[in-house]
Each structure stands twice: as C-alpha cells, then as structure tokens.
C-alpha cells in the first residue's frame, strides 16, 4: 500500500525526473506570479497606477436576474462617458504630478544622505600628525 507520505516522496521524485527530462523547462511559473506585488509597491508600479483607467465591464449587478440592471448601468456609463473621462484625466494629472514631486524629493534625500555620509568620513591624518 502507498501511504500518503510515500506518495508525496514518489511525486517529488517523479516531478524532478520530469523536469530533468524537459531540461529544466516544463514547470514554468504560472500566470499570476508577476501580478502579486511586494508589500510596498515600487515607484514604477506607482507610475502605472497613477493613470486612472476603469474597466467598465466590472460594473454589473449581482441580483439573480441582474442582466437588465447590468445593461442599464452600462448604458448610463456610456451616456456619462465624457464626464468620466474628464474625471479620470484630472485625477491622473494630480497623481502624476504628485508622483513627480515625490520622485524629486526622494532623489534629493538620497543625494543629501550621500553628501552627509561623505562629510562624516573622518579626514585622513595630516602629514606629520
């Protein structure tokens, strides 16, 4: 009888053999790995997020017979499309400007920290000391 512990060992071995046969390929990372962020998003990611783009297909009704309500919501979105685009553009402008200021400040802090570290370095002893 194969016990669960033995089964796990067998599966591990077979998976290793499978990978070896494929020359290390064939067990590529799956599709969502890259979309899961670090706890603190990078500046590059913040730049992407600063551009507001809303997927209107995510506007829907969860009611049992919600299809007509979903259709009505989409119609309203289409009617208000111009307004929403202005709203998105203004919010994106603000986000983008704020991020630029933040980036400038970050670079400035790093520069000042480098200068401070440099000036803290004890001077080499003068000749004859």
């Amino acid at each position, binding site marked *: 009888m194969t016990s*669960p512990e033995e089964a796990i060992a067998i*599966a591990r071995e077979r998976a290793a053999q499978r990978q070896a046969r494929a020359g290390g390929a064939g067990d590529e990372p*799956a599709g969502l790995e890259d979309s899961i962020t670090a706890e603190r998003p990078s500046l590059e990611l913040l730049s992407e997020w600063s551009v507001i783009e809303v997927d209107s297909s995510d506007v829907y009704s969860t*009611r049992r017979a919600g299809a007509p309500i979903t259709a009505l919501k989409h119609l309203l979105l289409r009617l208000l499309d111009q307004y929403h685009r202005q709203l998105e553009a203004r919010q994106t402008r603000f986000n983008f400007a704020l991020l630029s200021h933040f980036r400038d400040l970050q670079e400035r802090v790093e520069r000042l920290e480098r200068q401070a570290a440099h000036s803290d370095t004890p001077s080499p002893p003068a000749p004859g000391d």
Partner: protein
Amino acid sequence: MTRVHQALSSVGPYDAVSTQAQAWHGLLGRWGMAGEVYADAIDPRTGNGVRPLHELDPDPGDLVVIRYSAYAPSLRPLLALDRRKLLVYHNVTPPRYFWNHHPGVAVACALGRDQLPRYVGAVDVAAADSLFNASELELAGALEPRVVPILFEPERLRERGPEPEGEGPLVLVVGRLVPNKRHDLAIAAFASYQRDLAPDARLVLVGEPLSPSYRRLVERLAHASGARSVSVTGGLPQPVLNSLYARADVLLSTSEHEGFCVPLLEAFHLGLPVVARPAGAMPEVGADAVLWSDDGRPGMLCELLDLAVRDGELRQELARRGRRRLEHFSYERTAESIRGAVDAALA
C-alpha cells in the same frame, strides 16, 4: 434572557463567514441565546434572516459577536458600545494579492489589517478560527486569543443537485476566484496532468469571482495553458456543489494564503482525496490527511493528482485519515469551544 447578536460588515450567498454566522445562529438558538445576524452590506442573493446593521440595538445583558474579515468602518461604532463583545477573526488577506486586480479590495484589506488592533483592544474576548489566525491576533495585541474552529455542519452536504455530466477523472477546485487562491497554479498543474497522464481529465473551478474581469483573466489562463475541459462555474448553490463533490475524484487547492479552508472538511466528510499546498492554516486543518505539495510547483501537483486519482489504497487511507481529522472538528467539539468563548465574553 441573554441574547447573542452577530455583526458582519457584509453577507453573501457563498462566503464562509456568512455561512458561519448562520451556523452559530442555529447553535445559539438551541441554547436559547439566539439574537439576530446583522450586516451592513447584504447581497441581494442572500436569503432572508439577515437584518441591516443600523437596526442592531442590543439589550444591556446581550453579547455582540463581531466577525472580522475585512476593513469594516460600519462595525467601528460597535467598539464604543457599552455591551459585552466577542471578536471572531476570520483573517484579512494581505493586500499585495489585490493591488493589481481590484484596488478597492486591496485598500480594504490594507486598512482591515491596520485596524485590527483597535478591534482587539475594544472587545472582551478575542477568538480566531485557527491557530494561524490566532497568531495574527496576538501580533495585533490580543493576549491569549481563543481558537474556535469553523462550526462544520455535515448536513449541509446532504442535499444533492443534478448529477454532473461527463466522463474522465474530475479535478475539483473550490474557493473564491481571487488571486491568493492561485488558480493559475491549479490550471498549470491540471494542464500537465491532462497532457501527460490523463487525457480525458476534467477541471471544475467553483467559486465566486472577485470581478467579471478577474474571471475572464482566469478563463484566459485556462485557454492559454492548452488544457481542455476546464469549467469556471462561479459560485454554486450548496446542493449543486455537493453533487460535484460526490462525483469528483480529487480536490485540489493551490491557495497560498488561507485562514482556515472549509473545503478541506467538506472533502474529508465525503471521502474525497485532497492535494494541496501547505499554506496558512491548511496544515493545521488537514494535518496528515492531505497530499501536500511542499514545492507548490505544477510538476509535483500534477504527479500528486495522478496518485490521488489512480491509487485505490492510497485513496482509502486518505479517506480514513480525513475521517479522523473530522473528529477533531466535530460539531459537538466546536460547539464546546464556542460556548467557552461566549461564556468568557459574558463573564
């Protein structure tokens, strides 16, 4: 007469926290202590019996159970309430899973985790449904939080819906369609399994999607994997899910963050083998009754699926161990834990 009310930020038709509130309600009723279940957001698909949160007005001797699983500004006023309070923590998923897929949910998760200490500090007793979740409560400042497991009601699994159609090994994945469940890994493992070992295998992904666009993303991943016979069903009524459990050959979970994982108990009850990654609270729930993929890679998951489907004796042993795990989570035993937490909060 003391009544125990339960407050949730939201209730939905298929989520574990709502189901738990209803299960507790039945148990409290047996003890003559049932108050009402209140929620701020009530999904229209949810059956009756849940009242709007603003109607909650407990009497002086009553207990308010606050179920915490997300940022819940509507629950915050309860913290100032001059009544006995029991916090039940069901875990809040780390926001990193959601930033790219649903910013609103990500913000709610970030705030939910940030504000947990406020809840811990304002209640009389803090409890969690697993040791894993209790450890997060401790980090939030709880002193010796209680562990009150999920109240598992096997009778929920009795009613059957229509018999699922089709032939070939059926791999079942049960859990909300959200990024932390890593359905991409399940699809990749299944694609290998179908391609190399079981050409007639089928995969059914059951669970309420995070959003329509996230559902489409999962469907696109399934298409891109080359796998055939993959169904993304969305949330299903319990009888329909029960029929799938009864017909399935193996339950697969590739989740990497779980506060409990009720489907493990459901699979154990029906004698269904489980292949899973040892993430979050899952090892303490599944223990030695699950085929754990320690590397979480599709290759090993694929091999475990094959063994779980084909090896009859292995299936029997897993079923036996599953039944033993269920004794640990029996209704009576968990009811005792709940009674202990309720009495402690009222003391």
